[in-house]
């Protein structure tokens, strides 16, 4: 037997596509088609109301139902979603966090009603709340109770659903929020420690090695694929060390670093979107190339994610990338190809050292839960630095700041611009279906189940899962489950990190912008004031945060309102704060419904300040939004923030009849 070949070819990783939209029935059809194409696991995308625990008829759900994923309101929807899929054979990953105990309860309840015991189920609940505070924004409850819910899911599954991965500790979204590789490693490890420490309080000490073995990770891979691979090896090393030293896990198998991956979306461009395909391929190599740190499960984004929602064909293209890599190339025939590589060892050493230092800083602040504010402001600062490097040309992004000459792309030539448009009737249908569901169920049973849920939530020591599963059987809805917990735990708003973000290095352009802001402010009589916020449930706040920080750095007074705002909140704030301009960001595709509603409410409140919006806005929609009264629309191709700032100042000057810049 040779040392450079494996005796037999490795089995490929689990292949998934992050998918789901509209209704449970439509998503079920999509899943069946995907499985027929050779996909080997499911990855369920839920819509934002389901992720944040609101029923589809809640004010905040408006425009979001069925948009970025499937709407699951109760066990009836879950039955429809999984119809005809053998749950005892399927491996299902659910991207669900704040409401993870509830969606797992629905999954278990549906399996039970199909005669399948929990012990037969396998899959993953993402169930990681810290990265929701730091990056993704779909949290619902305060940190303490949220960590307890995570621990409850872990404690429950270890005993009753032993093949389940109860949590995917996510470094993925940290990179999307601007994390450097060192930060990605350090914050993920610190997060995992916080989870393990919380679980330790709720299970018997003898179970801790098993618990440790069930913790998996969800990582990111950017286009710097050599360093990214080193990052995964560094994480394996640190995880093994943590298991040995902090949690006394003796079995090396239980200390193995297990991870799934979705490669980078942050680096995908709207301009020349076909270039994203090669980016995705290279990023897929980062997580597969070296056998000793290879992903267990992979899902790849689609080439057109910066444009809008991908269609089934776009997702098929990404699945085929995985299949070519696994079945056509010789990748799976060799042992680890980096063993003994000086370059790789050196990179890993560098990252491990850096990560240890950063982990110490988090530990000094009392661990990951206490250090959320610190980590958030570090991420905002890192992201600001990344944006600056792209603006200044220090970081090349092909098609964005270099090689921008291009032929028109035939891929986006169709009427919808090469993306999926969700039928706007879905929301009304889902609301009608929810009303029918409520009318037909046993109200007494529902009330009793919710009372029990509230009692358990307040008890602190009891596990939330059994009461949740009982509530699922009783016909409780997603919004009702979450409201019962909100009653017990209270609502929460995470730190925004923008207040603490240090000012960037100054530049000639920045100075000139400041002078212009000063000039316009003097003419206005008070400092130019801008309101920045995100309407709807979309929690991806990186863009809004960068705009807020840059606005401050050029001398504006920025009222940063953060995420999850209703149109009436935005109107009230704009009026009371006396702002000169309003900047809104939406990435979930709900702009068609929400923006006109915001503008109507602003005008009704008597605010005539211009409104600019940013986000993933297809060109076809931009025109309609301008017609509805939006002064300017910015999309991912507008990477130059100083230019946006100059536009905004000009817009305010024009609105107040002031002379244009000299």
């Amino acid at each position: 037997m040779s040392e450079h070949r494996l005796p037999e070819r490795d089995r490929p990783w689990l292949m998934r596509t992050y998918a789901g939209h509209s209704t449970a029935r439509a998503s079920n059809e999509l899943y069946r088609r995907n499985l027929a194409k050779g996909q080997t696991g499911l990855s369920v995308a839920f819509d934002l109301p389901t992720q944040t625990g609101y029923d589809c008829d809640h004010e905040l759900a408006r425009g979001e139902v069925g948009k970025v994923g499937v709407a699951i309101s109760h066990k009836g929807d879950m039955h429809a979603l999984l119809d005809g899929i053998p749950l005892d054979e399927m491996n299902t990953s659910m991207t669900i966090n704040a409401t993870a105990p509830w969606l797992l309860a629905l999954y278990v309840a549906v399996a039970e009603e199909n005669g399948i015991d929990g012990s037969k189920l396998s899959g993953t609940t993402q169930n990681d709340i810290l990265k929701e505070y730091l990056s993704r924004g779909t949290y619902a409850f305060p940190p303490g109770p949220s960590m307890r819910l995570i621990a409850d899911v872990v404690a429950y599954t270890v005993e009753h659903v032993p093949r389940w991965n109860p949590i995917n500790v996510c470094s993925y979204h940290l990179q999307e929020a601007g994390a450097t590789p060192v930060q990605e490693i350090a914050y993920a490890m610190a997060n995992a420690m916080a989870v393990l420490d919380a679980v330790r309080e709720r299970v018997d000490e003898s179970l801790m090695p098993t618990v440790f073995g069930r913790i998996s990770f969800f990582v990111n891979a950017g286009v710097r694929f050599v360093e990214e691979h080193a990052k995964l090896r560094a994480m394996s090393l640190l995880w093994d060390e943590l298991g040995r030293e902090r949690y006394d896990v003796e079995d090396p198998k239980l200390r193995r670093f297990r991870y799934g991956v979705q490669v980078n979306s942050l680096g995908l461009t709207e301009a020349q979107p076909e270039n994203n395909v090669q980016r995705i391929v290279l990023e897929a190599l980062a997580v597969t190339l070296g056998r000793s740190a290879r992903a267990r499960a992979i899902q790849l984004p689609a080439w057109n994610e910066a444009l809008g929602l991908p269609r089934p064909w776009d997702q098929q293209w990404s699945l085929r990338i995985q299949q070519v890599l696994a079945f056509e190339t010789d990748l799976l025939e060799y042992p680890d190809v980096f063993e003994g590589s000086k370059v790789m060892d050196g990179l890993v050493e560098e990252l491990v050292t850096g990560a240890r230092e950063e982990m110490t800083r988090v530990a000094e602040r009392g661990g990951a839960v206490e250090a959320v504010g610190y980590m958030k402001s570090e991420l905002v600062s890192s992201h600001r630095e990344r944006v600056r490097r792209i603006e200044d040309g220090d970081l090349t992004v092909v098609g964005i700041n270099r090689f921008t000459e291009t032929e028109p792309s035939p891929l986006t030539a169709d009427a919808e611009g090469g993306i999926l448009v969700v039928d706007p009737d879905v929301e009304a249908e889902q609301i009608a279906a929810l009303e029918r569901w409520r009318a037909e169920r046993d109200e007494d049973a529902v009330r009793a189940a919710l009372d029990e849920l509230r009692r358990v939530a307040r008890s602190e020591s009891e596990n939330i899962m059994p009461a949740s599963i009982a509530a699922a059987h009783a016909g409780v809805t997603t919004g009702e489950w979450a409201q019962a917990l909100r009653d017990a735990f209270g609502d929460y708003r995470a730190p925004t990190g923008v207040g603490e973000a240090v000012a960037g290095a100054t530049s000639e352009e920045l100075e000139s912008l400041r002078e212009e802001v000063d000039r316009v402010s003097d003419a206005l009589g008070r400092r130019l004031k801008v309101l920045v916020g995100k309407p709807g449930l979309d929690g991806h706040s990186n863009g809004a945060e960068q705009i807020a920080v840059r606005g401050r750095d050029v001398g504006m007074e920025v009222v940063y309102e953060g995420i999850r705002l209703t149109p009436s909140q935005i109107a009230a704030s704009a009026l009371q704060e006396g702002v000169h301009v309003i900047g809104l960001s939406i990435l979930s595709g709900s702009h068609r419904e929400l923006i006109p509603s915001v503008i109507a409410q602003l005008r009704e409140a008597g605010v005539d300040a211009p409104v600019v919006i940013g986000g993933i806005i297809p060109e076809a929609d931009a025109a309609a939004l301008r017609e509805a009264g939006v002064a300017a629309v910015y999309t991912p191709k507008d990477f130059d923030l100083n230019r946006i700032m100059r536009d905004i100042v000009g817009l305010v000057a024009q609105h107040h009849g002031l002379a244009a810049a000299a």
Partner: protein
Amino acid sequence: MSGAELGRRLRERDLSAAPAALNLVEARRPGGPEEVAALLREVSPGALGGDAPAHVVGITGPPGVGKSSLLSELVAAWRCAGRTVAVLAVDPTSRRSGGALLGDRARIAVDPADRGVFIRSTAAGDTLGGLAASTRAAAQALAAAFDVVVIETVGVGQSETDVADAADTVAVVVQPGSGDVLQFLKAGIMEIPDVLVVTKADLGNIAESAVRDLRSALTALDAREVEVVAVSSIPPPRGIDELVAALDGHRAATDVAARRLHARRRHALADFAAEHGERGLRALGGRREAERLLDSLDPRLDVPSLRAALEENAAR
């Protein structure tokens, strides 16, 4: 709309005049000071026929202590009791660029449809560690229309004096386990507040011992009358009704008219000194003489009128 008109509307308790009044008060355009003076004249004790009805409450404490969560609960309690509330959230940071990030508003949970709540974020700007003159003027203007006006500031040890001059009652907020306030109090670095609030009462023993330590420090400082209230904003909220009662209790026990008169005179002198410097003070015969002059003026005058009187005298 003119300052006088806005002032009249506020005097008639027209809450919808608040945004425009604040825009005016913050303005630095030519003619701005005259308009602000006209507004303040309309809400002066003279024009109102007595002191403005609002309870002006200063809430101050270090960052991260839970002031915003506490404010959410307080606002809810005041609204429940039918009292209208205005909040001035002051951002303390001052930057060369003049820019500021005002993020507090997002952390105070209120019903956007409720017209009885008004929140305004303001930057302290170039005033060192304290309140901008516009914030004082804003509080005076809003006090004519709202039942409660809150001035929220960040910091411990520097800014309370400023807040104390603008508010009828100052509450300093601390969290258990932070010994700074205790040390500052004992060392006399910090003025004794009117009410002390200990947050995170859900932490149990740590919070209770913080309350005990503060009480014994206050006793040692012969300030036994200062109430120490432990609160928790985590459901079920605790201590909020007690805090409301403590704030009301302090106001009832205070000669508000005298406190405000004193503050107006101090502000007028400070504004005068900021504008005309030592030379201006000398023209008045020194600080002591200036204070004597102020004491002799009509107690119902607003700050700009008092300042104008000083200027008139200095020019003589």
